[in-house]
């Protein structure tokens, strides 16, 4: 039987209250949101917080709002709410692609976007999604609020710019006209973490060339975006050859490790193939048809 080590529990009534509780109970106090990463780690005694600050009552962190060119998503928004949101699906189809394959529907009832980013697991899907959409993370702490680019938010596996005494309150997604996105993941079975996954976003210019592109990989040992792969797309007309070249560069940028989910060459093959697929789908969604050269 897996039992967490003893800890004290407090329920925050507001963002301010959560910050005060974190401050008062010191470095071994941690926020709990959905608990679907933290509790399993506590049960395995890989995490031993002395205090848990429960933020589940903070309704002010549960919004999905379209606002002046940005979609604001509260940190406590559950996976299920993201998947159920029409505005999310319309503006950022990549989020729905990913949410359909994040864990299973029951886990998605609890897990949150803030917890996913806060956990920063290298196989975590929303991290790649946020990278690709060039999202920003809003963090509040004793010194007030700051907004950081997601690239700066990630400090590596299980490490983020959010300090122990701070709270992620919101994720902001810039809305870009003429753009679309897609995500695809290979998993061993329904609900499992990725063997490998890829995400892409593209923006088309008025002349039909690719004005901007972003490619990200999950569980493939790439920190941040595959910038070289995206760069070959910019200014070009979509074509199968171009997609193949970008996918080759994305695979080259990956550095997967062998584990129980597969060997390195298989994962690198997936990096290539999945990048092709998400680029094709994102381009299709934005209304461009890649011409076979």
């Amino acid at each position, binding site marked *: *039987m*897996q*039992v*967490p*080590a*003893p*800890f*004290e*529990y407090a*329920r925050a009534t507001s963002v301010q209250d959560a910050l005060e509780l974190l401050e008062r109970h010191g470095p071994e106090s941690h926020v*709990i949101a959905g*608990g*679907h990463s933290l*509790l*399993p780690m*506590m*049960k395995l005694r890989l995490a031993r917080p002395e205090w*848990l600050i*429960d933020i*589940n009552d903070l309704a002010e962190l549960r919004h999905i709002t379209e606002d002046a060119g940005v979609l604001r998503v509260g940190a406590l928004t559950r996976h299920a709410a993201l998947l159920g949101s029409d505005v999310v699906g319309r503006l950022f189809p990549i989020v729905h692609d990913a949410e359909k394959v994040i*864990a*299973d*529907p*029951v*886990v998605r*009832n*609890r897990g949150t976007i803030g917890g996913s980013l806060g956990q920063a697991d290298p196989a975590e899907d929303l991290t790649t999604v946020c990278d690709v959409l060039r999202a920003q993370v809003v963090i509040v702490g004793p010194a007030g609020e700051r907004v950081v680019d997601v690239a700066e938010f990630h400090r590596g596996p299980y490490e983020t710019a959010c300090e122990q005494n701070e709270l992620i309150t919101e994720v902001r997604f810039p809305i870009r006209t003429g753009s679309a996105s897609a995500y695809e993941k290979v998993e061993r079975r*329904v*609900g499992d973490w990725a063997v490998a996954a890829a995400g892409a976003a593209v923006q088309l210019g008025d002349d039909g060339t690719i004005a901007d592109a972003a490619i990200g990989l999950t569980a493939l040992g790439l920190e941040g975006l595959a910038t070289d792969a995206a760069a070959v797309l910019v200014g070009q007309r979509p074509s199968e050859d171009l997609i193949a070249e970008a996918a080759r560069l994305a695979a080259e940028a990956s550095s997967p490790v062998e584990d129980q989910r597969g060997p390195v060459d298989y994962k690198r093959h997936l990096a290539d193939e999945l990048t092709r697929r998400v680029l094709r789908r994102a381009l299709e969604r934005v209304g461009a048809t890649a011409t076979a050269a």
Partner: protein
Amino acid sequence: MQVTMTVNGTEVTRDVEPRLLLVHFLRETLGLTGTHWGCDTSNCGTCVVLVDGEPVKSCTALAAMTDGHEVRTVEGLAQGAAGGGTLDPVQQGFMEEHGLQCGFCTPGMMLTARALLDREPDPDEATIREAISGQICRCTGYATIVRSIQWAAAHPAAAPTEQEVVA
């Protein structure tokens, strides 16, 4: 610490350790052993209960986090007095369509089915399979579970059980 929650319509208050998981609160503190406990790693779904009407894996929730909320377990599916009363259509469906063999996964499956039908009274097969995709059954191969849920969807008002008809 003290927690108060509504379990199957009855308010309960107990002193618990903050680290007590909801599954053990239900099974040991309250003696409601209908909620099963399997993998302990959030994967099998046999521990699923409804919290405020939504399926949740109770091995991955604290009793403390459930303070102030409404919990429904398999014991709360049938309406009326325990042992008598009327079975929920989902329970009847599992009888009619042989939705269980060993029965280990059954409580979680039935609660997920109940939540699905509350939200979507007439789901297609793909929707049913998606809804139970976080839960593992080692016996049935899922086909009879899907049919059981379809039976419940087709019989939304609890009908008399076979035994009642015979009697």
